[in-house]
């Protein structure tokens, strides 16, 4: 639950940047948001079906994907001759969001690695059946589902039915009204 709650914080922060600061997420930013939701999916599977290595694998694969996207975005903005040397978007505590993204994804992989050291919490012998959700679990699940649904709405408003622009600066669907 801590992992799910923790990974929701940067996603909520990204929404703060989008709606309060008025800075639109680029396609690579959206992919990083997706990767964070993927990290949460693995943790949700642990809560719903019991702790298993395959569920941690979902988290690790999502974090690896997110790290690759973050790295690509960092390299784009530190390449020599980049006319926009200050990077994409505002910095938060001195680093851009994609740099924080790489830190978060690598930290996630490290945390999952640490968790996998503790063999006793794995339930490999039991059949993976869904277990009843407690109210705190349901609340955390609802938060993640809400954030995902919010991403659907905001991405659809920003990009419509076509691929997202490389440098979005408006909500395309709203601008056509």
């Amino acid at each position, binding site marked *: 639950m801590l992992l799910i709650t923790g990974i929701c914080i940067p996603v909520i922060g990204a929404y703060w940047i989008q709606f309060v600061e008025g800075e639109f997420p680029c396609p690579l930013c959206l992919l990083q948001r997706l990767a964070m939701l993927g990290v949460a999916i693995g943790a949700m599977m642990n809560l719903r079906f019991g702790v298993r290595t395959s569920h941690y694998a979902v988290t690790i694969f999502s974090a690896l994907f997110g790290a690759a996207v973050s790295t690509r975005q960092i390299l*784009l903005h530190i390449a020599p001759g980049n006319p926009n040397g200050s990077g994409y978007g505002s910095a938060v505590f001195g680093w851009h969001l994609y740099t924080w993204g790489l830190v978060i994804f690598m930290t996630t992989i490290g945390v999952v690695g640490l968790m996998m050291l503790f063999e006793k919490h794995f339930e490999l012998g039991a059949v993976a059946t869904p277990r009843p959700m407690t109210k705190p679990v349901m609340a955390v699940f609802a938060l993640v589902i809400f954030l995902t649904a919010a991403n659907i709405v905001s991405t659809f408003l920003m990009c419509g039915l076509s*691929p997202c622009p*490389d440098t979005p600066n408006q909500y395309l669907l709203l601008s056509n009204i």
Partner: protein
Amino acid sequence: MRASRRATQQEQPLLHNSTPTGFAKMMTALFVLALLTMLAIWFGKRKAVFLLSLATLTTGIFWFNHHITDPLNLNF
């Protein structure tokens, strides 16, 4: 005070190759797949969760490939 960093709107030629088609043409589709995965978790459908997770990740990789295969005409 931080200045707003809105990009100026420019006509951008389509430089990418490997553009996803069909439903996946919308980046929104990625988040729809993620939502379906979470709903499958909520309703306890473990096999569907794995299939949808795989679909989400695969589609994400395709979108990532779309965005890294050509120089981007970026303007911030």
